[in-house]
């Protein structure tokens, strides 16, 4: 490069070079902006306000956890590099060195103590959801800046799993941070790869790169999440290039999205959609004989439940209704994830056998029922009710499918107005769903929170409790698989499918690593190579 002599030694050359460099950086920065259309309606910036994915997915950019869950739901080091049990009731966590919060202060064991205290002692309902994760903790202490000792009430083998849900906040000299203060955008410091920039509740979240991040340099200089609740609008935003990533796309739109040049990734979700039966009442609501007379609750007979589950054509559900983006289910999580049983796989429908079982149970002519469910809450929910109606008609059970908005459905289900209905469960591990959906309901311990059908099986309760007392690892996984085998023989629910999370991304994104729990984060996206 030849510069005029007058410029050679005046420093202007340096300035010009710097200007060029600056422009290049600015251009590169624009190229490193990531725009995401997400269905996760972020309603708060308080990381401990609610355990909903809606909050934790997006807030995981700002805050980090001691322990992470990888794509197979196994635990990985996060802000803690290692952990071990000192005794039956005591755990030691070693923390990562040289980690700094966004305000520059170092991350220490005191911040962990503060976080757990905030959840246990400071937050009041309705923000008490995280207390479920700290329930078994008796005390937390910080013997040195990089060690945390947690003492528990009784044995807490899943403490690291519980901690994989909790975001670590920084201890502020001014006391506990209130939800209002955090929502106002003040004191919003975490250790995460991205820093908070701006936010409008339920609309937008903007983040910038944390250049001092302890791990690999975050890939994107700016990240902008736009909350787009309508799936069609997310499809449109991705198709027109308005965003680089769109999450939770409808299966039926996948072909059209691919035709327009976007790429699509999917993963079977760590969740189950199933049919649940009313088991406590003498007469199940909406269930009658063929001429409309009330009959004793047929679902209390194990044979009826088995017949109904056996007669569901799950192939139609996953191939036709979910367009192939679903896996037929026989248990809570897709086969292969930790704690699942290899003995349980979905079978094709066996109508003759099912009809014989119904006859044995005293219903040779079948009966009538109303099948309830939400409309538009889960992929394929409304259509599934009708497909199940087609299946059950073949064993003489006539079904009136009724789909209503989720809020209405949820209220009526809670009020016990349904006889049989479509439900769903997801969680960080399979025992969460086993306990929530099938354990005998107990208000005090919180067991059976989703057991709306009042299924009670003391033998199962005992087996589950024993399995949950084991340390996280292969022995526990095996025990949970055995518990699942045992309880599914009784058919307390009729599993339907694990739908797939379907994400799409445009040309500026090179790859996106899917997570079975359905996270949407910038960390999972890598920029396309130029």
């Amino acid at each position, binding site marked *: 490069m030849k510069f005029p002599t007058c410029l050679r030694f005046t420093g202007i050359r340096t300035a010009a070079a710097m200007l060029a460099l600056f422009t290049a950086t600015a251009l590169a920065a624009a190229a490193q902006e990531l725009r995401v259309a997400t269905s996760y309606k972020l309603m708060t910036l308080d990381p401990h306000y609610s355990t909903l994915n809606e909050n934790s997915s997006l807030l995981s950019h700002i805050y980090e956890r001691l322990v992470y869950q990888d794509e197979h739901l196994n635990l990985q080091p996060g802000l803690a590099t290692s952990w071990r049990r000192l005794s039956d009731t005591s755990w030691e966590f070693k923390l990562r060195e040289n980690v700094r919060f966004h305000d520059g202060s170092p991350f220490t064991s005191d911040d962990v103590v503060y976080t757990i205290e905030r959840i246990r002692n400071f937050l009041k309902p309705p923000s008490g959801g995280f207390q479920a994760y700290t329930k078994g903790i008796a005390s937390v202490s910080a013997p040195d800046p990089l060690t945390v000792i947690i003492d528990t009430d009784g044995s807490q083998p899943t403490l690291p799993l519980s901690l994989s849900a909790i975001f670590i906040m920084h201890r502020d000299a001014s006391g506990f941070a209130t939800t209002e203060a955090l929502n106002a955008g003040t004191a919003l410091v975490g250790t995460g790869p991205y820093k908070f920039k701006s936010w409008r509740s339920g609309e937008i979240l903007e983040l910038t790169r944390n250049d001092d991040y302890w791990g690999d340099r975050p890939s994107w200089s700016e990240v902008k999440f736009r909350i787009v609740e309508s799936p069609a609008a997310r499809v449109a935003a991705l198709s027109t290039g308005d965003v680089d990533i769109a999450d939770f796309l*409808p299966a039926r739109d996948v072909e059209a999205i691919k035709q327009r040049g976007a790429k699509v990734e999917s993963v079977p979700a760590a969740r189950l959609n199933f049919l649940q039966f009313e088991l406590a009442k003498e007469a199940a609501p909406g269930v009658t004989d063929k001429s409309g007379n009330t009959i004793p609750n047929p679902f209390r007979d194990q044979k009826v439940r088995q017949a109904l589950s056996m007669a569901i054509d799950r*192939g*139609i559900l996953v191939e*036709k209704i979910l367009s192939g983006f679903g896996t037929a289910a026989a248990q809570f999580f897709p086969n292969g994830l930790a704690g699942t049983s290899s003995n349980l796989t979905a079978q094709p429908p066996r109508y003759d056998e099912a009809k014989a079982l119904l006859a044995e149970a005293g219903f040779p002519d079948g009966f009538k029922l109303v099948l309830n469910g939400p409309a538009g809450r889960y992929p394929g929910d409304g259509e599934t*009710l009708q497909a199940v109606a087609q299946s059950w008609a073949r064993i003489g059970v006539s079904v009136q499918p*009724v789909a209503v908005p989720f809020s209405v459905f949820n209220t009526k289900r809670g009020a016990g107005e349904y006889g049989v209905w479509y439900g769903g469960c997801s969680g960080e591990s399979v025992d969460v769903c086993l306990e929530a959906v099938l354990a005998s309901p107990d208000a005090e311990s919180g067991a059976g929170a989703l057991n709306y059908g009042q299924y009670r099986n003391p033998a199962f309760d005992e087996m589950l409790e024993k399995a949950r007392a084991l340390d996280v690892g292969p022995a526990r996984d095996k025990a949970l698989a055995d518990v699942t085998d045992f309880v599914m023989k009784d058919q307390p629910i009729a599993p339907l499918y694990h739908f797939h999370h379907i994400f799409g991304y445009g040309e500026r994104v090179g790859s996106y690593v899917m997570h079975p729990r359905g996270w949407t984060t910038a960390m999972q996206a890598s920029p396309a190579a130029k």
Partner: protein
Amino acid sequence: MTHQPSTTLKRRPSRRVCTPPNLILALFVAAAVAAPVLAPQNPYDPLQIFGWEASSPPGTIGSGGYHYLLGTDGLGRDIASCILYGLRISLMVSIVSALAAAAIGLTVGVTAAYFGKWVDAIIMRVVDLQLSLPTMLVALIAIVTLGPGVDRIILALIIVQWATYARVVRSVALSEAGKPYIDAARTMPLSNARIVLRHLLPNSIAPAITLLPIEIGHAVALEATLSFLGLGVPMDQPSLGSTVANGFQYLLTGQYWISLFPGFALFGLIAAINFAGEDIRRIWDPRNRSI
């Protein structure tokens, strides 16, 4: 302007019954009545539906021996059968609701005109109030309050439509009520109800009859709209509107037939009713009567 009776007579509009719109409408009605015979599949009977044949393109021959002339929807229902059965629902709902609304509107309109004063004022303000609300909004509120179901849709459509009849009939009844034969009737020892129903009403009925076909067309469209929004018929009883709605989500995927054909049927039905309504108006119009 000079009066030329001869040409007026010659130019008198046709009062033929067998016009093309009337024939097309008759065809629609016949198809609806004969749906169980004509349709290859009963889309309300889950045993006749094969889920594995969902989303088949037009012309596919299914395992049950059905020839899916217009293809199947996302649950395996034959679109042609859905259209035939949907016509039944659409026509039944719209005709029943329009007749009922006409009956109510007539009675209310005539009553208002006959009694006048505060009765008229109150009734007509209620009518004005309802007519000032968007039809769709009233229908939506009615359905949300009453709950879903075919009978509820009919009720909602009656609620939406009666005011139009009342408004139109009242204006005619007002002029009739001032005529000598009504004054004569009033001098007789006749009850008000008898005068209104036997004397005033039959002479004020013409505008309501003119309005009827147009309102039936509106009712078809409104029922389809409600069903499209998922507020109408039960999900396992497809009507024209709900079939269009079912297919709507597949439009981008190339499965055009689910929405397109029921949409055509809906368009044809409403157009036929509107054109036929014009014929009916001509036939009923007193000025067109032969000497």
